[in-house]
């Protein structure tokens, strides 16, 4: 194992995991000297009946002062401010966020406003603007994917001024993440598939990109083992409580891994496809993951090769010659996408041309690819990718990922030849 010249690792979030983990919330809040929480969630979570499960699990021990279920799928500054007002009016002393990334971001934003007694969230954007602990925040993830219950970032959008603000601080970490199998039992198949692959891409990029360290590696390996053991199992049998809990734990482990190691081009391109075409994050990750590994193969193929162990188990690992392992990993990830495609009746997209919106319309028009490639150039995550990418490189990867043709790793060395210095945008 390579010990980096320097690294940092931290996850201060307490993790409570189990089939009835939420019953621990009253005691947990009491230990944080709180007991009057506001619940922050969205209509989807309410519609799935999940709020009732939470309320049943905790209402004996805590005094729920407010349930705010109007968080939009995209975090919004106005909502943050109005929910902060609600928090104050109802005399709340803590927050319970139930949902996916946007709900977590919104709750973190509310927490800044109410803890700092501020009116202007703007003042606290950027790294390390926060100087002290905020109000207690408990995060209950309802998808097994984003890992935002263990990350220290909140992205809040100001839709009026067309601004996207990033807040980064250890104080934004939830105090406790409660991972309960009941919250993902009813997750629809396509979302189970996409979020599961999202978690896998976090773990794989954490392990194969530049800012890895021994602890992020261990978290990533465990996440990959759990995902490869359980993702298809829960697709076939959605009510598999044990499998669901394994997937949720995997998402948390992967979140801790990439939160401490950063990610690479799969995320760079995924963010860009998301922002230009509105494609859900997990779907982008699933499609791009094999391409990211192929593109970087000549730089980090030895690391990709190691992933055959957690992905396929010791027998396959031992039975595959070293020089074939990395390609086998990529083939297996494509195989997972294919299996998920079949298990969802074609709703899990394997390529960008297969991504459809609710009305069945194509979401990623081929003409948009240049826009996406341009957007990718300004995404910070590319800094940690093993190989450089310029505009043409991004476009080339997007084109094959749109069409569904593999990048040939053997032909890539020519792409990375000095000619890429000549090609400019």
């Amino acid at each position: 194992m390579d010990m980096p010249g320097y690294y940092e690792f931290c996850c201060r979030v307490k993790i409570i995991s189990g089939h009835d983990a939420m019953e621990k919330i009253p005691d947990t809040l009491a230990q944080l000297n709180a007991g009057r929480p506001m619940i922050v969630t969205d209509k989807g979570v309410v519609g799935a009946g999940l709020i009732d499960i939470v309320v049943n699990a905790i209402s004996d021990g805590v005094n729920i002062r407010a349930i705010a279920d109007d968080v939009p799928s995209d975090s919004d500054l106005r909502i943050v401010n109005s929910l902060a007002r609600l928090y104050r009016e109802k005399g709340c002393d803590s927050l319970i966020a139930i949902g996916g990334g946007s709900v977590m971001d919104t709750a973190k934003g509310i927490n800044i406003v109410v803890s700092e007694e501020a009116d202007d969230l703007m003042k606290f954007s950027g790294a390390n603007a926060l100087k002290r602990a905020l109000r207690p925040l408990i995060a209950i993830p309802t998808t097994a994917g984003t890992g935002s219950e263990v990350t220290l970032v909140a992205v809040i959008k100001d839709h009026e001024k067309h601004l996207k603000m990033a807040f980064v601080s250890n104080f934004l970490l939830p105090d406790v993440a409660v991972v309960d199998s009941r919250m993902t039992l009813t997750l629809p198949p396509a979302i189970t598939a996409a979020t599961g692959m999202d978690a896998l891409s976090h773990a794989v990029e954490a392990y194969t990109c530049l800012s890895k360290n021994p602890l992020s590696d261990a978290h990533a390996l465990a996440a990959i083992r759990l995902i490869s053991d359980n993702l298809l199992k829960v697709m076939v049998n959605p009510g598999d409580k044990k499998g669901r809990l394994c997937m949720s734990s995997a998402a948390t482990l992967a979140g801790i891994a990439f939160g401490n190691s950063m990610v690479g081009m799969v995320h760079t391109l995924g963010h860009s496809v998301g922002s230009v075409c509105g494609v859900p994050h997990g779907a982008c990750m699933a499609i791009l993951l094999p391409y990211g590994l192929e593109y970087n193969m000549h730089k980090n193929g030895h690391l990709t090769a190691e992933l055959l162990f957690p992905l396929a188990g010791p027998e396959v690992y031992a039975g595959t010659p070293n020089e074939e392992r990395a390609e086998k990993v990529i083939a297996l990830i494509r195989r997972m996408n294919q299996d998920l495609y079949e298990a969802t009746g074609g709703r899990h997209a394997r390529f960008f041309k297969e991504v459809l919106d609710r009305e069945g319309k194509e979401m990623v028009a081929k003409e948009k690819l240049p826009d996406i490639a341009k957007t990718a150039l300004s995404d910070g995550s590319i800094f940690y990718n093993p190989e450089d990418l310029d505009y043409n490189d991004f476009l080339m990867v997007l084109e094959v990922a749109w069409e569904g043709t593999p990048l040939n790793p053997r032909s890539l060395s020519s792409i990375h030849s000095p000619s890429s210095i000549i090609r400019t945008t």
Partner: protein
Amino acid sequence: MRLLMYLPEHYEFFCPVKINSGNRALEQIPCELDALNARKPLVIAGKDAGERGLVDVIIDAFKDSGIAIGIFDGVPAAPDLKLIKELFNIYRDRGYDAVIAVGGGPVADTAKMLNIAVSGKPEDIEGCAGENLIKRPLRPLIIVPTLAGTGYEVSKYAFFDGRSYESHFLMPHLAVIDPRMTIPEDAVTTAATSLAALSHAVEAYTGSGKNPLADAYAYTAIQLIMEHLVNVIRNQRDRNGSLSLANAHAMAACAFSNVAPGVAHKLGKVMGDVCHLHPGLCMGMLLPHILEKQMSEGGYHIPDLLLPLAGFEAYASTAENLRARKAVDILHDLLKDLSAVSGGVIPRLWKDAQVSEDTLQDIAQKAVGVGASFDMDGCVKIVRQAREGR
């Protein structure tokens, strides 16, 4: 048939420690203090740290920061509450707002006690002795480990003035592991502290409290110790190896703070007390024998232990039913190798450490008394095996 990754029905995990490790890690402390809302740290160290020049390294690291640090480098081997009161007065009167402890053992314990005092009042300390009696987060605490620690410095435990303290709030906010501070003092101490860490990590990884988050810390600690311990004992100037061992010690402490202490830990501590040996050495000598007994009992996650001990390649090429055996053999071999490369200075068997057979019953009785999970006969058997070899 593949071995599915184990996940318990219910688990909890908490590790508030941030780890900063590597070149010029000490120079990051001012920035970290700022993030903890502190700006005037009191550095405490033992006399030996001063003599070895470690305190000067710290002073040097703060040179360009504009931060004035206080230094107390007179922590004795057996500190008492009087010292805490003195330090409390210094901290309060001169306006310090954070504690930095250089090294482990009594220095780390003193820092933890001082932190209880300055987060409230010195009279709080006694009432916090025992399990989970600290009710809220304490003031910023940074530990700068050396290789001579006990393996407890980063953990939730403290032992002070005859009492033991256990709370997650005693864990430091930050462990700063810098290669300038992790130069080995002597082979036996390095081996003993690393064997303590190895035992803690192995028992977390194989025991009933096993969960994937504690596993990640334990797994990494075991890997690092297996990769570097023998090399560092052979070549004490192996800078990267020493840094890696110090990392492993901190990680093992994080895992250890999230599971109940295992039998190697308990028995090893008693054995160390009775025989006046470093408890880490005792834990290391006992560990393979204990695993062997647990192997025959079933219920422990020993086959999977081969993975961090030997790596993917060796694990995959070992038949499933032989993995537990192989894991135990590797631990036996580690002790042999340590003894060999140190020219016998590091004892492999308890009898090498010149301890008589008579103490055996005494050890077993005390171990059962502190709740080791084996009965009297089991303890006697284990200790005898560790004395005589297989």
